[in-house]
Structure formats: C-alpha cells, structure tokens
C-alpha cells in the first residue's frame, strides 16, 4: 500500500504541511476561514533535530498497530492497510496517544483523538501534506522493505 514518507534533506521546516493538514481536515472550503486566528491541531508534526534537520512525522500505518490493539472503544481499525478512527465511537480516553510509539496520534483540540488517515475521508482524496509540500520533502508511495537511507 502507499504510505507517507519523508525526505528530510529536502524539508525546509516551513510547517506548511501542518497547515495543509489542518485545512484539509477542517471540512471548510476557505483556508482563511479554516485557519485564521485559531490554534491548529494538525495530524502531522514537524520536528527539528539537534543539527537543525527538520522533517514531518505522521501516522506510519504500522503493519501491527498497537493503537488499534489498545483502543478501549473499538474506534480504531485497519481497513486495507489504512488505520482509521471512527469519531462516532471515540470517547476521548486518549489511550492511543499513550501507546503510539511515534507520537502520531494526537488530541484534536476538542478532547478526542485524531490521526492521519491519508486524506481518504476528506475531500482531498490524497494526502494534502504531500500535495502542498513546496520542496517535495513528503512523498506518498509504495515501499516494501526498510531502506537504510533514501
């Protein structure tokens, strides 16, 4: 299946992916209305390491997802490899946040959990972070094994 991968040598640290993510999942059609003067709760997080290298972290859609196994509400599931959250079932216990080893499941600002669903459930249909990355530092592709580097 296709997943999101980062090319950290291309990442500018501009955080546009975070804004594109928040907008894509806002349900609104106007980016200004969606984001202006509001704290954003993106499902992708830009980190900076000790050498100033930046890169974006989002759900890895693990082959053996501990968040799905740990969800006390049966709200997380894996469908065709994509780990989805059923917001109607989530009660906001945040057990998924407590167990995700990559810090990729986060609170959505209203008390429930959210995570990257590869923009499959919003109007984008393909990851907005990838599409909007100005330097091609986030890609959406098939990979099989774990490469040592790009």
């Amino acid at each position, binding site marked *: 299946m296709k*997943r999101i*991968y*980062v090319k*950290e040598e291309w990442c500018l640290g501009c955080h546009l992916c975070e804004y594109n993510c928040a907008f894509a999942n806002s349900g609104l059609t106007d980016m200004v209305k969606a984001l202006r003067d509001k704290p954003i709760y993106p499902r992708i*997080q830009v*980190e*900076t*390491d*000790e050498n100033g*290298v930046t*890169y974006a*972290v989002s759900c*890895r859609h*693990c*082959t053996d997802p*501990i968040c799905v*196994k*740990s969800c*006390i*509400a*049966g709200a997380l599931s894996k469908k065709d490899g994509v780990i989805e959250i059923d917001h*109607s*079932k989530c*009660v*906001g*216990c*945040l*057990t*998924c*946040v*407590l*167990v*995700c*080893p*990559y*810090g990729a*499941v*986060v*609170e959505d600002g209203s*008390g429930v959990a959210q995570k990257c669903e590869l923009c499959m459930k919003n109007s984008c249909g393909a990851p907005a972070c990838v599409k909007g990355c100005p330097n091609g530092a986030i890609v959406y592709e098939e*990979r*099989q*094994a*774990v*490469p*040592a*580097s*790009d």
Partner: protein
Amino acid sequence: MKHYVIIGNGVAAAGCIEGIRSVDTESSITVISAEQHPVYCRPLISYYLEQKTDPERMNYRTPTFYADHGVTVLYGKTAEKIDAGTRQVTLNTGETLPFDALCNATGSAPFVPPMKGLETVREQFTFMTLDDALSLEKAVTPESKVLIIGAGLIGLKCAEGLHDRVREITVCDLAPRVLSSILDETCAAMMQKHLEANGIEFLLGNSAKEFKGNTAIMQNGDKVDFDVLVLAVGVRPNTALIKNAGGDVNRGIRVDAACRTSLPEIYAAGDCTEYRDISADTDKIMALMPNAYMQGHTAGVNMAGGEAVFDQAIPMNSIGFFGLHCHTAGSQPEGCEMYEEADEKHIKRLFVKDDKLTGFMLIGHMHRTGIYTALIRNQTPLSTVDFARLKLEPQLAAMGSAYRSKVLKGVV
C-alpha cells in the same frame, strides 16, 4: 480441523478470535458468554452514563464480527468445569464441549468486602458491566445522593458518569488519596482538587464500616446519608476454573509471555491473569484493556499453532476527569531517580533507574506521550538517546537519526 473453546466474551476473547483466525481460518471456535451481549467496551460504561456513547456504539466490533470469523457464541451460558485431562469443558447446562486448545478469558469480578448491614441497603450496585450501568441508571434521579465506596479508577469514572444526573456524590476510600493504584501523593492531590472543583466530595482515609438502610457509618464515626450506593472497592480475577483444573494460580492465573497456563493446551488472557511487568521485573495482575487484547491475540495465535509472545507488558493508564487528563505507565522501582516539571495545572514526573525509563506520571498535557511509553516497553538505554531533550518534550528527534530513518523512511 480443530476445536477451539474460549471461556469469556470480553476483549481478551475478541483478541483470541482474531489471533486464531490470523493463523487458522478453518477450525471451529466456540465462545462461552455469560453476558447476553456481544463483546462491548467495558470501560465505556461510565461514558454511557455521561451520555457520550450508547450501547450500540459501545460494541467493540461490527454486528457481523462473530459470523465473519466463523464463531459460535453460547450466550447466557457459563463454564462450570475444565477437565484438562480429557480436554473438555462442562457447562452450567450440563453440556460438554471438547477442545483441542482453550483460552480462559474469564475476566474479573467486583470485590465486595464484608461490611455490616450491607444487606439493609436497598439500592446498591457494583460498576463493572453494561447491565450494572443500566441498573444504576434506572436507580438514580436528579435528586439522588450517591455514595461511592472506592476512589480508584472505577469509582471515580462512575462519579464522573453520574455527575450530571444526580444531586450529590461522595466518594470514600480507605486509602489516603485518590487513584492510589496509579498516582503518587502529589499527582493524586492535583486530581482530587480538580474533582472537588467539579463538585465531587471526598472522605479519604475513611470508609464505611456499617450500613443502616440509607445511612453509612464511617470508621471515624461520621454518618453519611445516601440514596444510592456504589461499591467500587476493587476487582478480583476469576481464577476458579483453572485452579480447580489443577493449574498454577496465585492471585491471578499465572501465564507466561505466550499466555500459556501450567496446563497443556490451556491458555489464559486478560484480567484473570497474572503476568510479567517488564518495567518492574515482577509478575502482577494488570487488569487493563489494551493488555487484555494483546494477551488474547497472543494466546489465539499460539492456540492455532503459530508463534507469538506478549513480552512487553507494562501497567499503563490513560484516564481523565472533567477535562483533566492523566497518563501513567510503568513503575517506580526502589532507588529510581525522578525528573519533575510542574505548575498549577500540569505535572510531569519521569522515573529513571539503571539507564532506563521505568515509569511516568503526567497530568494535564497529553502530547505524544507514547514516545515515553515506547522507551519503557522497549527498555531503551537512555544513554543511546538524547534524554535531556526527551525530558522536555517527547520527540523522535531525540531518538537518533538511525531510528528516525527506520521509522519515517520504511514500513514499520
């Protein structure tokens, strides 16, 4: 074609079914379910009272789960006896079920200590099952005064669930602090203050010693009047079937990392078991839903002839009350060092021993805490990561570039 039998129909059983079917799609699976409900999310019963969910949404799996997995569920029946020699289970109806491999996923039951006059209390409830929650819901009115015995996870979630449905809630506990099984004094004090600010009253270091109808006489002599009593002192693992079959049982059913009991082809999973907490290197009862699923899945894979272990078990809890959340994991072994950050609405306590993160308590700010949990579960030597950075904020940036490459550039 084998016959698998699962005693119990909770989350450990669901894990077991999915574990078996990941290896063996042909053989028969029979689930013995004392409760009349398909597997549901037991910890959600307080959210039901809070009207944040309903019985339909509380179902753990889809309506076709059992059919999809080729499972026969015997609702309303209980197992009376396991014969480990002839490999059969006798039910309360007298029927017998032969098995090739069995999983005992019998869970736990509320522990009600002997208290004088308890039989004189008309409206008394435990808080463990959906049926408990439905009965409690019927018993309360907006005018009710509720007394909850037990300020642990169950008692306090019950208090939160009832908060908008009753007039007054008092919680008492023999322990001197709330949530004593997961929080230390400082963290418990912050949670208690927040609960009190939301109208929950506490009587701590004090519990009911006698009841006279709707009055509890406390150990210090105080009298507390109530309309509805909730007994949430604690739970005990349901171990009798394995014990009577000759299996190794301590406080819980002893299982190894493959979820095997001491009896051949008999496995156990979930709240009924006692197993290794790797953060403390001791066996204990960790009655936690995520662990129950993972044990059940492990048992299922092994029952079906696959190979699986659950060897990263630690206690962990994510729990919140009235908007204030706390995450705890692992343990605080003797001689551990503590790193702390705190202000009025937030506490972070990390416990370190022998170059490992052994546990943490976090209140107020729950962001990417799983990165800490993974350090405990993986027993990562802290000398191999930038712990000074991790202390400030959980982040992959502090885990080294090799780890980061593996996670962000590959399939994990």
